């Protein structure tokens, strides 16, 4: 067991994947000598060389588009998009090419690409550096989308994503990069990549979160416990596909569900979960499924981001509202 920060755990996972498979490449802006702006790829170029850890030109469509070609040639590229808001120049290649290649080739071609994206706010950044664009990719058939919340998952999930033959959007909660936990590098992953996890069992309401909001929700559950409320917190881990059986079991037990994410509310992951829980657990629900999310505005200037982002109090407010039914 080693105590590791989340960013360091991804680094260790990348290293292990690269050691295990010579076809695994890391590519992106500043991922080489600098080790990435968050140092997630620190030391990899030194150990694996410039052919496997590629400092690319500064163009996201080029990063994704050349990764497609490398994948077609048999490589397994792990692309870093430097910040969430910079994925959009590569959006066309992701949505029109990466997501559809297997389908349109009738299964003949595979593009096992991982696209790592540090996402979310809470670090006082300037615009375009705090966004949560995961919904666009969840909406896109052909992509798998995961979001990690803690170092142990980060270590294993990056390796599972790289091993998968489908393309994966891998969202990393940038404000949690420095969160530390024990990581057992010799063990094996506790769950398949697409599985959700009940991180805290409870009976009164289900709180569903992913990425940076998992810790917020655990803090909220601890505060609620002091008030005598028992919250069940679920870390989705995988946003596409969704692990519905875990949600079914929880909601059928609690009868109440709150979905929490930083991303804007409309047509977000929360909306999809609300729809599916309502369709599939209708007779178990005691209250409408509520969403506690960012507001439907562009990500605001950082001096007001605390009011924009869901925090412990807003999560508890949402819980109070579902419990009031």
């Amino acid at each position, binding site marked *: 067991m080693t105590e590791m920060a989340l960013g360091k755990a991804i680094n260790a996972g990348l290293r292990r994947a690269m050691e295990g498979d010579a076809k695994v490449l890391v590519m992106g802006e500043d991922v080489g000598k600098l080790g990435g702006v968050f140092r997630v790829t620190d030391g990899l170029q030194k150990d694996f060389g410039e052919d496997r850890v590629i400092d690319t030109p500064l*163009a996201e469509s080029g990063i994704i*588009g*050349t990764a*497609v070609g*490398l994948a077609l*040639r048999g490589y397994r590229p792990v692309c870093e998009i430097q910040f969430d808001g910079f994925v959009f120049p590569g959006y066309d290649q992701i949505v029109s090419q990466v997501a559809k290649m297997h389908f349109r080739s009738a299964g003949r071609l595979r593009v096992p690409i991982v696209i790592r994206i540090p996402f979310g706010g809470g670090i006082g950044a300037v615009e375009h550096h705090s966004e949560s664009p995961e919904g666009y990719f969840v909406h896109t058939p052909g992509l798998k989308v995961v979001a990690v919340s803690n170092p142990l998952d980060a270590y294993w999930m990056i390796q599972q994503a790289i091993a998968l033959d489908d393309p994966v959007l891998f969202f990393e909660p940038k404000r949690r990069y420095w969160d530390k936990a024990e990581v057992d590098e010799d063990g094996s992953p506790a769950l398949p990549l697409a599985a959700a996890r009940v991180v805290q069992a409870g009976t009164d309401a289900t709180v569903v979160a992913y990425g940076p909001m998992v810790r917020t929700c655990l803090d909220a559950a601890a505060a609620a416990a002091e008030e005598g409320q028992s919250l069940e917190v679920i870390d989705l881990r995988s946003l596409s596909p969704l692990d519905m059986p875990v949600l079914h079991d929880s909601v059928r037990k609690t009868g109440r569900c709150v979905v929490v994410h930083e991303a804007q509310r409309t047509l977000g992951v929360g909306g999809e979960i609300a729809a599916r829980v309502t369709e599939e657990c209708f007779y178990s629900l005691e209250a409408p499924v509520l969403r506690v999310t960012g507001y439907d505005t562009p990500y605001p200037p950082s001096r007001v981001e605390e009011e924009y982002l869901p925090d412990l109090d807003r999560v508890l407010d949402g819980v109070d509202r579902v419990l009031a039914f």
Partner: protein
Amino acid sequence: MTVETDATPPAGSPAHDEHELVQLLTPEGERIPNPEYEPLIADVTEDHVRGFYRDLVLARRVDTEAVALQRHGELGLWASLLGQEAAQVGSGRALRPQDHVFPTYREHGVAWCRGVDPGLLLGLFRGVDQGSWDPRENNFHLYTIVIGAQTLHATGYAMGVQRDGAVGTGDPDRDAAVIAYFGDGATSQGDVNEAFIWAAVTNAPVVFFCQNNQWAISEPLERQTRIPLYKRAAGFGFPGIRVDGNDVLACLAVTRAALHRAREGEGPTLVEAYTYRMGAHTTTDDPTRYRLAADLEHWKLKDPIERVKAYLTRTGGADHEFFESVEAEAEDLAEHLRTYCRELPDPLPTSIFDHVFVEPTPALLEQRDEMAAYLASFVTEEAHR
């Protein structure tokens, strides 16, 4: 050496105003001496030229037959290569088996040279699939419709070739190059410019083969560029060359040179094959709305097939019997296409779920079952009637 020829368009536009292009065979079928590029096709015999003639005629026949199939309602759409046969056959015949091709949706002549059954090209345009050939069998990637996107795929693939150690070894069976096809319109796309940058800084073994057919649907070359397209390469740091795109021998020679450079590890080249889209953009387009019939007549005089026929006739390299036999072969190919097209089965509705993922998701399998049950409900209703 380059020559001034009447393939050069009228002056007046900066994009066209360039009197240098490589030509080895005039529209009248006369060979032009060229010390730089002639040696690259020194091995080309009359037999080879007859082979190119056959390729050109059959590629055109595939095209005219597909247009006819669209007119008869058998295809939803077709993108015609009419006029661009020499650019495609010349470059296609320059490739080695281990080279890899990334086409647009108009490279039917290149597909022919790669040994892809032309019938397989029809599925996409009939609406029964999105590319039914196996790109790994002929090293011919699926057609790409998003303009220019494939140039990045080609460049990335070439970076993979580099990493596989298949560049600059001197082994003619091992060293490989990648060729990306695109048009004049695509040169305005960010992806194409990013591909140029990537290829330049990584020295990737890729040839950028631009068929400048002068029209991006209704927009003439002047809407895309103020300078001749091949000159753009200089700004990216690799050679660019303009070739007469209606001259199969010149396209062969120039592409061979560019592929050779790539395989040797000397990096990318931009080839601008200067040609003309003699047909519509696709079967839904109406070029009479935006261009003059006189232009088309001008380019008909430079037809890529007629000049090879004139050459073979002039040299005695082919006789009437040969030309007749190619025509007969074209008839057979057309019949094959008609039959193949009409027999193409519609896909099973539930097959749309088959390859969304390598590892299917539970939600998708549920949707497949939902669709199957819904469709089956009609069968049951019929039975009860």
